[in-house]
């Protein structure tokens, strides 16, 4: 399936470029997750299923969740890292 592989490779480059060029951080993170999932497919095509499993679980899944978490953290105003004042005992 050389055409499919070529398409996969091209999509990888395009998603990587989109993730880097995106102005909206959320879009960049989503593109990163898409890139990770496509990369897992590429590893399968390269006959490396072990790396594909790790890439899908860690590269796309957990790293994506951590990046989204960090994004939510960044959106808060500076100095409000602890709970809201009314919540404090």
């Amino acid at each position: 399936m050389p055409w499919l592989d070529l398409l996969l490779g091209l999509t990888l480059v395009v998603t990587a470029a989109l993730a880097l060029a995106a102005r909206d951080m959320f879009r960049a993170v989503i593109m990163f997750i898409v890139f990770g999932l496509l990369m897992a497919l590429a590893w399968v095509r390269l006959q490396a299923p072990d790396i594909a499993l790790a890439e899908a679980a860690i590269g796309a899944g957990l790293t994506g969740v951590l990046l989204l978490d960090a994004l939510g953290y960044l959106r808060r105003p500076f100095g409000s890292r602890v709970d809201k004042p009314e919540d404090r005992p």
Partner: protein
Amino acid sequence: MSLRTLSAALLCIGITVALGWAVLDRPFPQENVPERVTSAMPESGVDHPITAVLLNFRSYDTLLEIAVLLLAVVVALALREAQPDRPEQMGLENPLLRAVMAWLLPLILIVAGFLLWAGAYQPGGAFQAGSVLAAAGVLLRLAGVTTAWLDNATLMRAGLALGLLTFLGIGLLVMIPGAPFLTYPLEYAGTLILVIELTLTLSIGLTLISLFRLTPPYADDPDEAREQEAEETP
């Protein structure tokens, strides 16, 4: 184009060319590594070459990798702000997620167990199983489920260190009859690898969950945050 952009571009092109040259110019491998692994497979105690390399032939590398993971989570623990863990704040306002988790959780645990067991003869193993476990933990957290044993600091730390300690302990234990460090005796190799993988799965799962849980609770509504910011800066 400014001078900075130009120099950055030149640097990038230079590094790319150097990397390409390094790849093309690498020395031809002196020995046939896949063949050596295949011929040594009967001594490994497992049937899957990747697992054999990771946990037997090159287990020292894996040991250090686990140590690095533990170090990362220790640093995250140290950097954590002194604030109470508030699962009810982390949870998303989504009753559907809670309901789905009741169905999903057993399935995730079975998949993790399968991946761990499958590592002996096909793709799978401790790292993949651990990250699947961690995914279950993250989902539970997002669903706002409180777990007393995850909040127990002593138990949590013991779980985090369990994998590395077991790995090290077994590595040292085999030295008693006189074998080198981390060289498992042939008849027990399979069992020892399974024990190490089991504890590693648990520790890796807890490590990844901790890295997620140690981040502060979710941001408030971005619009509200912007309003607050506007109020603070006159």
